């Protein structure tokens, strides 16, 4: 608990700020008597009060708030891709407090916790702390860092209470989503200000966490809604054999405005800021003989601010345009480096129907990234600072071949980046609704992983170690300016079925063929001026790989109050280094589990009381020496009042602790412990 003063002090301050701020604006007035009555008649399943319906005035009719779920409901089963949607309710009932923990529930997504604040997250293989093949979006803002094309999960501070849903697409989403959507897209969508009216306070306490969330939403007139929210947490690190500390604290605050300007125009403005600290320990090489290696106790300081504006104009049902612009600033300071990064992004999208059977979406995007990297003896980039830009264009046509039965979706994305030039990412998909209960889809696509700063510009000196036969040397990982993009051809097949109203099945099969997978070859050894030998490990694209597997999900509601879901993910990874490469890339074969199972039971015996149980079973990681593990989570939730909810849960009930991933930065990862938690949620 050293040097955590800033987040710990600032944390509670936002509570004060929000409480002061909540005096502004007025919540929507409560509905009055007659309106409630009409509402009841309108919503009753079998209205018997036909007289009242007949006598309803037109004014009353036009004043009723309508709910329309039917049109949107169809779409999950109508997507020609492997998609899974996590709702706010799914996340809460799993007791997940961070994005990676929520993603454990999703079939095909590998989540391995390395320590309290680090995870390795990937979809369909190539998992690593530096996993690099995912596009992760939070409200349309891309959050993977171009530093290594991966995500610093410990600085993605999104309070789970603010999430409306997380859409996860396994497989390439290249055509519409663009850069880095190779193995999948994770799209986090937070609640609009309109859906966040009134106040919410939540406090979570447990043996390893203390957290709070406060939100207040109000209306400025009928068409404009505002929400202010803030959150703070202090999570304790898991115990490790070496007594390493991995505490993680953060505070976050934001505001969002949603304005329905008129029937055709919507405007969203959003601003968020975060600041936090996370502890880590690792070995680092320094130019100080005789040992050179130093064990570092470090605190990562991270902070950021981002602002986004999005305007949507609807011409009619068949045509709309969206314009979005955002700015994102992040700063991360560790013992070995400091990275400051500014991103400006502008996107435009236009959807229209040139004919009844065609719906075309096209768009253009521009992103400008400016980074300022201050390295150290052990870690550097050449050049230190870089400005780079990405231009992109996409077009897609959804062609209805047979109404309600057969659709062909095809399109491409063309992107230009400063590292590998033009990249072409086409895809074609076919969706066939065989009957009311069954849908089959198939897809072939190409996706590209753009080279990152690391694959291009990196210089990382590894700690000294015995390379065999008493030859003690350091390695130096070096980027290669000639590195090309990793390309992938994906073939997918899916089947969705709802044989009974209370049972649904979703099966996806995939075969991915990668070329130019990142690998390394040894360079000519040299002596560092400090006096030790160094073997260069030079990045190249000298590997090919195939992955194949399936994900099967079932969702069954045997009773109104009971829901059972299960998913099974199967994965095989084969890597083939080409030429004289080292076996770096082959490691990918053994860092993803072959099998993963997630089984959930959600039981709601009463309106005010429910229970959840989740079982996760993950196969061993042979290469990393990680045994398979079985995890059971339980939770109970009670709402004694409309405004009040309390609950308790335990994670990893049957197991004191278990490891989930291999070495990181030459330190044994922490093992995931059993944790218990309680919470209280109050609405006002």
């Amino acid at each position, binding site marked *: 608990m050293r040097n955590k003063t800033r987040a710990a002090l600032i944390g509670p301050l936002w509570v004060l700020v929000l409480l002061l701020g909540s005096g502004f604006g007025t919540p929507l007035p409560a509905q009055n008597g007659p309106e409630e009555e009409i509402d009841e008649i309108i919503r009753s399943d079998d209205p018997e009060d036909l007289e009242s319906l007949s006598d309803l005035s037109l004014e009353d009719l036009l004043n009723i708030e309508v*709910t329309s779920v039917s049109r949107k409901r169809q779409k999950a089963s109508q997507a020609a891709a492997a998609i899974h949607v996590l709702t706010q309710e799914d996340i809460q009932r799993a007791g997940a407090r961070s994005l990676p923990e929520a993603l454990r529930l999703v079939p095909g997504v590998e989540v391995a916790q390395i320590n309290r604040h680090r995870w390795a997250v990937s979809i369909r293989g190539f998992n690593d702390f530096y996993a690099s093949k995912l596009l992760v979006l939070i409200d349309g803002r891309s959050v993977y860092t171009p530093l290594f094309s991966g995500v610093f999960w410990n600085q993605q501070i999104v309070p789970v209470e603010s999430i409306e849903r997380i859409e996860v697409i396994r497989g390439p989403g290249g055509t519409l989503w663009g850069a880095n959507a190779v193995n999948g897209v994770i799209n986090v969508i937070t609640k609009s200000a309109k859906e966040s009216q009134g106040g919410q306070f939540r406090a979570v306490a447990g043996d390893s966490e203390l957290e709070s969330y406060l939100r207040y939403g109000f209306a400025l007139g009928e068409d404009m809604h505002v929400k202010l929210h803030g959150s703070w947490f202090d999570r304790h690190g898991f115990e490790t054999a070496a007594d390493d500390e991995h505490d993680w604290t953060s505070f976050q605050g934001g505001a969002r405005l949603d304005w329905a300007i008129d029937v055709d125009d919507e405007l969203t403005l959003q601003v968020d800021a975060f600041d936090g600290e996370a502890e880590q320990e690792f070995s680092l090489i320094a130019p100080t003989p005789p040992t050179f290696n130093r064990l570092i106790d470090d605190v990562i300081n991270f902070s950021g601010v981002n602002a986004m504006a999005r305007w*949507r104009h609807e011409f009619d049902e068949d045509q709309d345009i969206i314009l979005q612009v955002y700015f994102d600033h992040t700063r991360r300071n560790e013992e070995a480096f400091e990275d400051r990064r500014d991103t400006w992004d502008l996107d435009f999208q236009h959807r229209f129907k040139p004919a009844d059977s065609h719906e075309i979406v096209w768009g253009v995007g521009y992103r400008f990234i400016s980074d300022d990297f201050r390295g150290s003896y052990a870690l550097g980039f050449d050049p230190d600072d870089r400005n780079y830009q990405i231009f992109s264009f996409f077009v897609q046509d959804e062609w209805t071949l047979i109404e309600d039965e057969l659709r062909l979706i095809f399109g491409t994305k063309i992107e230009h980046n400063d590292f590998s030039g033009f990249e072409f990412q086409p895809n074609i998909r076919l969706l066939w609704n065989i009957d009311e209960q069954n849908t089959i889809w198939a897809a072939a696509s190409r996706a590209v992983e753009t080279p990152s700063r690391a694959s291009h510009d990196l210089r990382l000196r590894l700690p000294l170690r015995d390379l065999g036969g008493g030859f003690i040397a350091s390695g130096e990982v070096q980027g290669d300016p000639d590195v090309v993009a990793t390309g992938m051809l994906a073939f997918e097949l899916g089947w969705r079925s709802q044989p009974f109203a209370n049972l649904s099945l979703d099966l996806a099969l995939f075969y991915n063929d990668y070329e130019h997978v990142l690998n390394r070859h040894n360079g000519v050894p040299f002596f560092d001026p400090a006096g030790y030998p160094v073997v260069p490990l030079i990045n190249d694209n000298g590997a090919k790989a195939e992955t194949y597997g399936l994900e099967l999900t079932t969702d069954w509601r045997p009773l109104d109050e009971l829901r059972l879901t299960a998913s099974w993910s199967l994965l095989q990874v084969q890597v083939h280094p080409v030429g004289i490469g080292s076996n770096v890339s082959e490691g990918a074969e053994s860092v993803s589990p072959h099998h993963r199972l997630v089984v959930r039971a959600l039981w709601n015996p009463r309106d005010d009381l429910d229970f959840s149980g989740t079982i996760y079973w993950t196969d061993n990681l042979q290469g990393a020496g990680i045994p398979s593990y079985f995890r059971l989570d339980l939770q109970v939730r009670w709402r004694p009042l409309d405004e009040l909810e309390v609950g308790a849960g335990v994670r990893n009930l049957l197991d004191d602790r278990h490891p989930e991933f291999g070495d990181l930065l030459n330190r044994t990862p922490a093992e995931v412990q059993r944790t218990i938690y309680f919470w209280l949620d109050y609405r006002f």
Partner: protein
Amino acid sequence: MCLAGAAPDYGRTLPSSTSDSEYRVKALFLYKMAHWIEWPKSNLPESAKEIVIGVVGKDPFGKELDLIEKLKPIKKRKVTTRRFESVGQVKDCQIIFLSDSIGEADRTTLIESARKKGIVTVSERKGFCAQGGMFSLIIVKNKLTFTANPSAAKKADIKVSSQLLKLAHRIVKEGE
């Protein structure tokens, strides 16, 4: 980059238990509007005992439309419903609701023939009135409202009461 607002809204995998009141309200609107409309005698003679509300194309109402048959008569005429599979079959009705499944060409054809037959045309498409349709039902801020094109009605010899028109969200002049 697919923008978040336009990211496919896949919704939930299984039907939610929330009741879906949109089409009940729309069905009731079709029933209620009949009270404020006068049809040409050619389509609704004095002797007519029924006002028929038709739906053409894929029916979005389901049982909600049948509900209005149980309601009180309007101007002493019983209100009944009919479903038509295709635009060519539409006849013997006073109000026709064009489902979204009706394509552009069929829509134009029906607007034309409804004018000749004195049938009130209603759709859920925003641009319907600009295209020559008479009423377009739209949801604004979670409430039902409508756009009206009284001059299109007038051409069909249909009189729309100002009581109804004053509730319109927008009045469109044909050809606008």
